[in-house]
């Protein structure tokens, strides 16, 4: 059967993991912010800013990992802006997030256009190359699917473990989870609610920007206008789907990646019967369905969206 044929190729799973990689960064970033009680709708713009900043740093001559660092710092800066508006000032997280998205994307486009006023074809960089892990990449099937990705993808997988460890095995993680559920209890222990929340939003935004950088530095090799194309919003949906857990975030991103890769392959097989746009819509519907399925029983961090002021109990 044709569908099974698609699912049984290593090439398909390799693509699924590649598509999932930026989303892994994005969902991890979003879940860190939301675990601390702050919805970060700046994600779509922060993806764009990370994609642009990382690409441009490399284009200007720094090496790839420095480019990733530049992207992360750019994301952190926008995260800091969102954190200042929503944490100490307690302003609407929805509106501030949309504002950060508009600002980060327009600033990225503005800087790109100002630096490159008259280019018709976007200049390319030398992106991350697939890195074949010795021995493991020789394994049949999973060798080429899982162990011949770029180093940037391996970083995404490593970060899932790191975030899970920090969140569940360290005092910092405990405080972080508490501040999104019951900030008063954190305050009562003498910890800084503001500090934890600001730190979480800054760190989460840095991860989001790395997701954006993956697009220009590993998945593709150039920056295009509109290249993020809703991936940030999909991450917000997947975060709910993952019930704010790093392991489930990985699973959700991989499921989405598999679905998207499947959609592309289906298109080449039955594309003659249906317009291409039908297939391109499917990933967005997938995200909506994923959200709807879990929304009722979703265990939202209890203090999500609720501003907290010191001394105002």
């Amino acid at each position, binding site marked *: 059967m044709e569908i099974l044929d698609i699912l049984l190729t290593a090439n398909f799973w390799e693509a699924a993991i590649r598509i999932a990689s930026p989303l892994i960064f994005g969902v991890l970033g979003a879940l860190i912010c939301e675990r601390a009680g702050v919805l970060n709708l700046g994600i779509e713009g922060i993806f764009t800013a990370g994609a642009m900043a990382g690409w441009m740093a490399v284009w200007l001559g720094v090496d790839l990992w420095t480019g990733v660092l530049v992207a992360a710092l750019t994301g952190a800066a926008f995260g800091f802006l969102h954190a200042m508006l929503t944490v100490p000032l307690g302003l609407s997280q929805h509106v501030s997030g*949309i*504002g950060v998205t508009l600002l980060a994307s327009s600033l990225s486009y503005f800087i790109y256009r*100002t630096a490159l006023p008259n280019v018709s074809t976007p200049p390319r960089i030398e992106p991350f190359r697939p890195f074949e892990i010795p021995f493991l990449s020789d394994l049949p099937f999973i060798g080429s699917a899982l162990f011949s990705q770029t180093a940037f993808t391996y970083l995404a997988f490593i970060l899932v473990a790191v975030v899970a460890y920090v969140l569940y095995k360290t005092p910092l993680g405990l405080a972080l989870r508490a501040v999104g559920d019951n900030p008063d209890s954190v305050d009562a222990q003498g910890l800084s609610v503001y500090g934890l929340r600001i730190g979480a939003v800054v760190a989460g935004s840095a991860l989001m920007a790395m997701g954006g950088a993956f697009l220009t530095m590993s998945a593709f090799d150039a920056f295009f206008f509109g290249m993020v194309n*809703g991936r940030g919003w999909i991450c917000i949906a997947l975060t709910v789907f993952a019930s704010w857990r790093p392991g489930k975030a990985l699973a959700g991103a991989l499921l989405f990646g598999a679905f998207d890769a499947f959609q592309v392959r289906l298109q080449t097989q039955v594309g003659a019967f249906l317009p291409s746009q039908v297939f391109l819509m499917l990933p967005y519907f997938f995200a909506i369905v994923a959200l709807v399925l879990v*929304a009722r029983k979703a265990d939202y961090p209890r203090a999500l969206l609720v501003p907290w002021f010191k001394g105002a109990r």
Partner: protein
Amino acid sequence: MIRFEPRQDTPAILSILAPVFAAVAALALAAIPLAFAGAPILESYRLMVQGAFGSLFVFSETLTRTTPLILTGLAAAVAFRARLWNIGGEGQLYAGALAAVAVGTGIIDGPPVVMIPLVLVAGALAGALLMLGPTLLKLKFGADEVVTTLLLNFVMLLFVQMMLEGALQDPMSLGWPQSAPIIDSAALPPLLPRLRVHSGLILGLIAAVAVAILIRRTVWGFEIRAVGENAAAARFAGIPVTATMVRVALISGGLAGLAGVGEVAGLKGYLTSDLSPGFGYAGIVVAMLARLSPLGVVAAALFIAAIFVGADSMSRGTGVASYIADLVVALSLLCVLVGGFVTRYRIRLVGARKAEA
């Protein structure tokens, strides 16, 4: 140490001045990217003002841009009043535009008194239906409408592209993805000869007054405000929260749909997939700048339109990338958000001893 004290009531002058200051601050902050681009700063601002208001022709262009922004701004303002986060104005605008070309390009013909209301109703209905989906998902399944409306914007744009390469493609377009032209009897007439400003502007103004009356003077409006302030308390008081949310969704989506009708039937004359340069998203900024006041939306829409038209013209004069307009719009949103804080809290500097106590 700095302390914030909630105000009991906001002085009226402050609620009017805060958005004005926000707009000025956004423009002032734009000096940084202008300097980065190496443009002469004062000259750039002068060109921007001249480009938006300098002649009858450019002012007509500004009013033309104001038209969809009033409607998408009202769409956001009504929804936000009820705390329904409709971020899908962009998709609803395209839904409205698509419905307008579906009925207004010759399938049926009649006198303008029939055809114009027909395209308007079709567009409003399409926008309303597109917002009904996410609202029902929110009410039935608790799915966050921010995410669903945002994702539907992308779906809708793909759907428009699909229709423009399929059922609604103009057979005379030689394969170009655009719709057939709106027939004359369905077109919104121009307001002034040889200028692009069209009667959609009047429609927008009527809509603003109608929404103002709805919110301030009707039972529905009272219910919308009550649900927005405290849905649990409203439900306890016997207000039909679900019905109110659905009503708000239909009104909000319908208004955004009308913006799409105006753009195809009043301005462009046919539909392409680049009809809107983000009017839906800019509508959110308009609504926030207006502090969700329907009449304030008109002023805020004029400001944002002037930024777009003025910056375009300045960009041609100085070579500064035209994304400067989007930057000012984004900065306006963040500035008005901070400005709103000032109207709600008194900022006090208090001595260290007092803070310890």
